[in-house]
């Protein structure tokens, strides 16, 4: 299984409440809140597709789309319990 490559972040601006959780905990500082307090990907090229933003969003408002196909589910690494 190769490294997942980012296609895009889909951010649902209607659902995002601007809590900043995805922004703060992104290990690569990919995300920011814009002037309307909605999450946006400002440096998508740095994204490592860990999906932590997607999994921690309380509003189901952010999705990390990878290419070419969906990679293994995040649960594979879950047993470490550090996150």
């Amino acid at each position, binding site marked *: 299984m190769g490294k997942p490559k980012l296609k895009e972040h889909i951010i649902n601006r209607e659902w995002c409440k601007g809590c*900043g959780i995805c922004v703060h905990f992104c290990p690569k500082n990919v995300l920011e809140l814009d002037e309307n307090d909605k999450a946006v990907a400002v440096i998508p090229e740095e994204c490592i597709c860990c999906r932590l933003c997607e999994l921690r969003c309380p509003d189901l408002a952010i999705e990390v789309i990878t290419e070419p196909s969906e990679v293994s589910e995040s649960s594979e690494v*879950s047993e470490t*319990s550090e996150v």
Partner: protein
Amino acid sequence: MAIKDYIRERFFPHMWCAGCGHGIVLNGLLRAIEQIGISKNDIVMVSGIGCSSRISGYVDFHTLHTLHGRALAFATGVKMSRPELKLIVPMGDGDALAIGGNHFIHAARRNIDMTAIVMNNRIYGMTGGQYSPLSGYGTSATTAPYSNIDHTFDVVNLSVAAGASFVARTTAYHVMQMISVLKQAILHKGFSVVEILTQCPTYFGRKNKLGGAVEMMEYFKNNTTSVGSKAKQENPELIERGVFVRKEIPEYCSEYEKIIQRATIG
């Protein structure tokens, strides 16, 4: 199926405040169910009353939104009549352990097959920030303006003592672990308790000057550790996370089925 197929999209954006940990519990639960691959029609979610209990409105399973504290009693009725269904019972800490405390310990003692999720934000969110049995000594709440003198329950110890056959704890920060323990709890045959420490920035956070959702999640990150870790020996203040109990003991509905067989022959 994508997780969007498990929700009632028409009710989104949901009613929870910005940064409310209950939304992260919903997120993790949907992933757990998706990864197990259970059909939506085989799941019944039963909830009581509270911000946490509103979760049942957002999922596209069979759902029952019942009375404050009584979710486990309704769930017991559903499970006894349709034992083949998977029961998931999310509750607030007040719902589960104040008004619903008696239902909680007896459901655990019977070992009836269902997954109880305690969405523990240490406060009554829905009604405006009154203290709960999980607030803990020295905390502030609208009903404890001069500080709370009640000691807290330890949900894990309580569940173990009451006889639950699967007991785990995690937090809204530890999403990978949340998904993992929820999967294990749902697959376990017997009464499973998953305590999830979750943030209520609006009341618990504000009343106790803990900052917003981000700071409260940082707290979960920095003040918890894996069960049995060396860190816990060095710093006993740390809260342990992980699976505490997993045992195979006779399950209530299976035993009841045997009683029916015996009575029918007799």
